[in-house]
């Protein structure tokens, strides 16, 4: 394990975090929350100095392999969460440390689960930071750093692979730096369009800004207790459209930009993602039609909720905990599935689901024709054995983490629905679950142990389990 290079990159991460923390300081100047702003400024400077000290000495040895990549990414995210939580504690917005870390992890991992029972009492500065973590966490902090710093050498591909989502991570153009730039370019462009759209739908600039952050990162932090229910109907429609867009693989947008729209429609994952969204929304609309005045309003709420859960955003416009069991079960399944690989959403991803189903199909065909030779294809390309294997182990790891976490959380004595859906929601980076942790509730009732379990689940879910697993695997740290 090459510790000096990990120290160097972590130093860089701290420097960038210091830079990010300057943004809320600007907000504090506008809203005249000088005391809060000062605290943010102090932490920003401290983080920057600490980062500069630790990255001052260039690493002696540039050896950087897959395991360094996994360890660096998981440590970066833990570091971000810990340092990012400091402002909440020091400003007194969230005085309890575990709560503050939970809230920050929830932000960076784009989960959007909150321990706050009254969000509206938070200062504008802290609220801005809370939502900004959603935005930067969506596309990834290391990807952002790679887009700006010339982290040349072999290590960037290992970092990118460990931080980006999906079963197989590829580049768009030869250089990682340019790939990262393109991804953030698309991300930033969509964000700007979204801010303008929200403002056209009647939001104030500040609201549009922070809700855009949470929407783009498919995070789900909102500044109203009623989540998006407190905004206009038009804003909700805008939100539906952009949540769908952010659940799509960002590589697909690159195909459109580089004038290959034909290939965009060839991506099966996107097609299935849209089909699942449509079927789920239709099924729920039929079920809840009775309790709504018109078909349109039923369809609106059903679509919003389906999109919000499947893209793992976690906004809500209505308390879906009161919906019929069948509808709630559909939502739970969507939580597990999540969006497309390479998007900002969580879950196990549609492409993994497709690979799993095709494996079953292949197995069935193998049983009927024992000597047949068959290759699995996805998006028109053969899926190599290693990719499909990593998908199986991912699913196994997912189930194991789920079971262990439910066991720990159930010690708090909540009903099964609460314990189970809270863990499921955390692993999928969704936010709300059912019952106590439903859209109207929050996570403040859990014990510290459960909160720590849940926040580790969020990190594991965002980084897709393996980086965290490597970090805690003793063989990683052995010499040689």
């Amino acid at each position, binding site marked *: 394990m090459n510790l000096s290079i990990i120290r160097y990159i972590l130093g860089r991460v701290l420097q960038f975090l210091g830079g990010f923390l300057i943004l809320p300081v600007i907000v504090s100047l506008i809203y005249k929350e000088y005391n809060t702003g000062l605290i943010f400024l102090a932490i920003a400077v401290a983080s920057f100095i600490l980062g500069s000290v630790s990255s001052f000495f260039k690493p002696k040895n540039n050896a950087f392999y*897959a395991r360094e990549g996994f360890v660096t990414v998981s440590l970066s995210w833990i570091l971000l969460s810990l340092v990012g939580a400091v402002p909440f504690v020091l400003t007194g917005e969230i005085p309890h440390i575990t709560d503050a870390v939970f809230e920050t992890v929830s932000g960076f991992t784009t989960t959007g689960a909150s321990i706050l029972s009254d969000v509206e009492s938070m200062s504008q500065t802290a609220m801005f930071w809370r939502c900004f973590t959603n935005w930067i966490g969506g596309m990834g902090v290391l990807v952002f750093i790679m887009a700006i710093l010339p982290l*040349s*050498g*072999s290590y*960037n*591909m*290992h970092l990118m692979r460990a931080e980006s989502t999906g079963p197989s991570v590829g*580049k768009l*153009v*030869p*250089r*990682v*730096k*340019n790939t990262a730039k393109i991804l953030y370019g698309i991300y930033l462009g969509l964000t700007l369009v979204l801010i303008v759209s929200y403002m056209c739908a009647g939001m104030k600039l500040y609201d549009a800004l922070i809700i855009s952050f949470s929407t783009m990162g498919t995070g789900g932090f909102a500044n109203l207790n009623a989540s998006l229910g407190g905004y206009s109907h038009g804003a909700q429609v805008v939100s539906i459209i952009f949540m769908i867009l952010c659940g799509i693989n960002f590589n697909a947008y690159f195909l459109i930009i580089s004038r290959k729209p034909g290939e965009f429609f060839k991506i099966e994952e996107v097609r299935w993602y849209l089909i699942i969204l449509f079927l789920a929304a239709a099924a729920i609309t039929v079920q809840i039609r009775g309790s709504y005045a018109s078909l349109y309003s039923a369809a609106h709420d059903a679509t919003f909720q389906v999109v919000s859960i499947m893209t793992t955003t976690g906004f809500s416009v209505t308390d879906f905990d009161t919906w019929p069991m069948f509808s709630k079960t559909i939502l739970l399944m969507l939580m597990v599935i999540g969006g497309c690989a390479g998007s900002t959403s969580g879950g196990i991803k549609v492409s993994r689901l497709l690979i799993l189903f095709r494996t079953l199909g292949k197995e069935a065909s193998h049983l009927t024709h024992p000597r047949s030779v068959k290759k699995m294809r996805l998006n028109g390309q053969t899926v*190599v054995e290693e990719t499909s294997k990593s998908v199986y182990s991912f699913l196994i790891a997912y189930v194991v983490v789920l079971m262990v976490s439910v066991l720990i959380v159930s010690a708090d004595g909540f009903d099964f629905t609460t314990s189970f859906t809270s863990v499921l929601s955390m692993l999928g980076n969704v936010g709300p679950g059912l019952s106590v942790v439903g859209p109207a509730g929050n996570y403040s009732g859990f014990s510290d142990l459960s909160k720590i379990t849940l926040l580790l689940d969020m990190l594991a879910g965002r980084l897709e389990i393996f980086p965290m697993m490597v970090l805690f695997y003793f063989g990683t740290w052995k010499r040689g």
Partner: protein
Amino acid sequence: MQIIIVGCGNVGSSIARQLSKEGHNLTIVDVNERAVRELSDAIDVLGIVGSGSQLAVLKQADVADADLLIAVTDSDERNLVCCLIAKKAGTKNTIARVRDPEFFDEIELIKNDLGLSLYVNPELNAAEEIARLLKFPTAMEIDSFANGRVDLMKFEVGEGSPLCGLKLKDIPARLQCDILICVVERGNETFIPTGDFTLNKGDKIGVVASGRKSAKFLKALDLNKGRVRSCLIVGGGELTYYLADMLVATGVEVKIVEKSKKRCDELAELLPEAIIIYGDGADKSLLLEEGIDRTEAFLALTNYDEENVMMSIYAGKVNPKAKLITKVHRSAYDDIIYDMNVGSIINPKLITSESVVKYVRAMVNSTSSNMEALYQLNAGKAEAMEFTVKSASGLVDVPLMNVKLKPNVLVACIIHHGQIETPKGSSVIRMGDRVIVVTTETGFEDISDILR
């Protein structure tokens, strides 16, 4: 530049490493999924799995917008087809590796029709290099500049050599000959020496001199053995064919040991004047029978690095006076065989990447000066380059002592209207001169790059 490399074998990956280091955007294409993955993990390139002679695959690599396509798969035919398709699809320049003499003889004929910008034949280039070495058997490496008029020769400073313990600035006076030592290898390190550098036993020195001066230098050092008149070659590949063809023409007695009967038949037909032996070169008694202890040169040129090294060590033992030449493909062995007695090491892969890199640098820089030659010394740790000076940069018409050079850069030779001059502080570079530069830096594209 946007560059596509088709084929990630030994040659492809070494070109990719070098070009990526020089800041180009590379896309690599190979049918072998594992090879693509390993290379794209190691360096920052975009990997595509598929056949480079399929348009669909090349389109994925954005062939229409590429500046250059380099085809270095192991099949000559595929390389040519690949270049042809790429050219039709819009790539500006193409380079193909062509090894088989069958194609190579006609390549000039079809070069234009195929739209090839350059073809490289590593086996032929390696054969040329070996032929030069056999002319000056005391040198370990010879790279030639200015159409062969200036040589950069590498020697080892032996036990009891007059050079031992000498400072470089004292050498011309002591040996009474005007030569310049421009690069020194000591252990695994490579230096561009200054005048105060003291030579030790075991150092490997690079000397730049014209033919006459180098003969004088060799005489002063008592290294002036005549050219080789007989040689024993193990391994009958393309390289051996090209080499034997050249050697036979200059009257050298050539004996080739080859394992495959079929290849022996082919060689016997192609090279009627050479002696072809059907047998295994790893067989000690066969080598003794064919006179390994009497031959003036022993060349291990099979396709197996390990076998070549072993045979050379053995040959060095039974015949310490023979000139040894060993072909080694894998650069991973560089550090291991460094102090083994295997004589001169020939690496056809390195020779190919030299000529491709030279071409790419010349493409980047088509303005002020032309790179005429590029050689990598000591496994790529240093480079020697020849430029023609075509524009008035800060370098021209200024005495060298007033020119601010980058560290680890040396102007090793100035050729002015055919006059070869060993540079001194008072020497001046003029427009149109050819200049040889030696450096441990990498990526120079223009003569002005040597300036600080």
